[in-house]
């Protein structure tokens, strides 16, 4: 490998890394600023360019009446909705994916591929198309502005992802595993729960991670379908982005919201390096 090539290689990955980190660094410095150091133009280095304060971080725990932004409750609302939505999607999606991978369905002209496509095609619908009917439907059911209503919507959002990943995954799990279990006297349910499922943990983890990512990062449904009782984290943070933006609180809140899923990036990388993910993602 020539010196030129390897220099170029490190240059490219370094430049891209800087591009990736830039907004985080900006948010981190901004979160320690006060009104003065934001409005006087861009400043970068604490103690040199500006006097750092903890006001931005303190405001996260104060109620709006005290001039804070109170993101603790939205944070836990987001955790509940994401966890419940992902959990339900994974359970139902895994079962459906298993049946689509192992059995043959024939209802008129509809085959397995068509059913799988139906599940996955739900992702084509932009949130805005569904939001108006969902708004009216949840209103009729009295579920507007409730956690349960949002969880229902998130199941529609996330189940297609679970089915997409799990069908591909089960297609790669050799069918001999099932057959051996059946010959050993299991009924099909036992074969699935006792033999196939334990062998599918990597696939389920990948599907779960994707569901978590797309659930945690959704904004639009939460924005339309909740008002005051239930607020999710992205909505609470975007609400700060008004005419007089408290840049310091906003930056601190943004960092808090990003933190939980950065952990996911490390887990994904571990799986990639061990080669477990390549089978599940193809």
């Amino acid at each position, binding site marked *: 490998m020539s010196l030129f090539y390897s220099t170029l*290689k490190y240059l490219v990955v370094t430049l891209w*890394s800087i591009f990736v980190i830039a*907004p985080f660094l900006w948010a981190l410095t901004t979160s320690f600023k006060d009104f003065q150091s934001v409005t006087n133009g861009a400043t970068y280095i604490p103690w040199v360019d500006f006097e750092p304060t903890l006001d931005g971080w303190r405001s996260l725990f104060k109620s709006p009446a005290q001039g804070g932004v109170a993101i603790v409750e939205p944070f836990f609302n987001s955790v509940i909705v994401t966890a419940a939505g992902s959990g339900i999607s994974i359970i139902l999606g895994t079962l459906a994916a298993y049946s689509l991978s192992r059995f043959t369905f024939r209802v008129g002209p509809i085959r397995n591929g068509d059913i799988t496509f139906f599940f996955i095609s739900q992702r084509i619908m932009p949130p805005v198309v569904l939001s108006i009917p969902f708004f009216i439907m949840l209103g009729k059911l009295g579920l507007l502005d409730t956690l349960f209503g949002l969880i229902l919507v998130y199941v529609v959002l996330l189940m297609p992802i679970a089915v997409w990943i799990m069908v591909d995954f089960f297609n790669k799990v050799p069918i001999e595993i099932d057959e051996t279990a059946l010959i050993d006297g299991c009924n099909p349910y036992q074969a699935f729960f006792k033999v196939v499922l334990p062998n599918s943990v990597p696939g389920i983890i990948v599907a779960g991670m994707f569901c978590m990512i797309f659930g945690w990062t959704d904004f639009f449904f939460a924005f339309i379908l909740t008002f005051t009782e239930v607020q999710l984290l992205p909505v609470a943070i975007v609400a700060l982005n008004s005419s007089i933006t408290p840049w310091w609180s906003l930056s601190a809140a943004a960092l808090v919201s990003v933190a939980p899923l950065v952990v996911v990036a490390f887990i994904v990388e571990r799986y990639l390096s061990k080669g477990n993910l390549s089978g599940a993602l193809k």
Partner: protein
Amino acid sequence: MNFKHKYMFLLPGLLVLLAILIFPIGFTVRLSLSSWDSFYPGLDFIGLENYIRLFTDDSRFWEAFGRLSLLSLTTVFLQYIIGFSLALLVWKEIRFQRLFRVLFLIPMMTTPVIMTVVWRTFFNESLGPVNDFFNLFGMQPLWLSSEILSKFTVVLVEVWQWTPFMFLLLLAGLLSLPKEPYLAASIDGAGPVRTFVYVTFPLMAPISIGAIIIRLIEASKIMDTVYVLTSGGPGTSTETSSFYIFIKGLREFQFGYSAALSITYLVVMIISFTVIAKILVKMMVRGE
């Protein structure tokens, strides 16, 4: 393998999905045939009037469509090129390999709408660091409020956010490639460029097609970025289809008309994706 209980596995998921979706979809179709707006709420029946208006008297919708095609094709193309290059760079031995891999994945784990808020402060024309830098050369580019640059900024944020998704799928693909073709290529004395053109790229074609289609589907829904970054502006220069439907439906409360827009949008989208998928398969898979 076949048995009568197979529906016990399929039906729970399918029925839940249908139960939640059947009303919204049916209702949208019905709504599109009505004139429901904030003055006269109610499901009257006006036939295809909304659709006629949309095809004959709404150039703004079709312009938004054109803009959406431009934005999503550009971003996905860039994401594919950059994502593939990054995946190739950290595929084989490189120092700090795992650190780079984690770093390259992080943007997709962040909430687009929140990072866009951060980007907005980053590109703020008077207080952000980007213009602080350009100031050194006596320039003040209007990243968010000029017609051309605001498009560029939207593309940049989308590329930042979603290149990792492409990177992840392509790297996972690269890591699962068989070893034998590479052995054969090196015995034949092929250099790195020829190995890529004749071995890696063809082997990666199915994964590439899948990744591009998934990204196109997600990119066509682009909404959060536009909403926060530019609100479709200046004027309508970054307004995409989703955002236009949002304005008609949830800002101007023309529910009936926005439902007609939605249905038309979905039909056009499903047709385009089918066509794009066919074209991609033709382009990437040789000899078929």
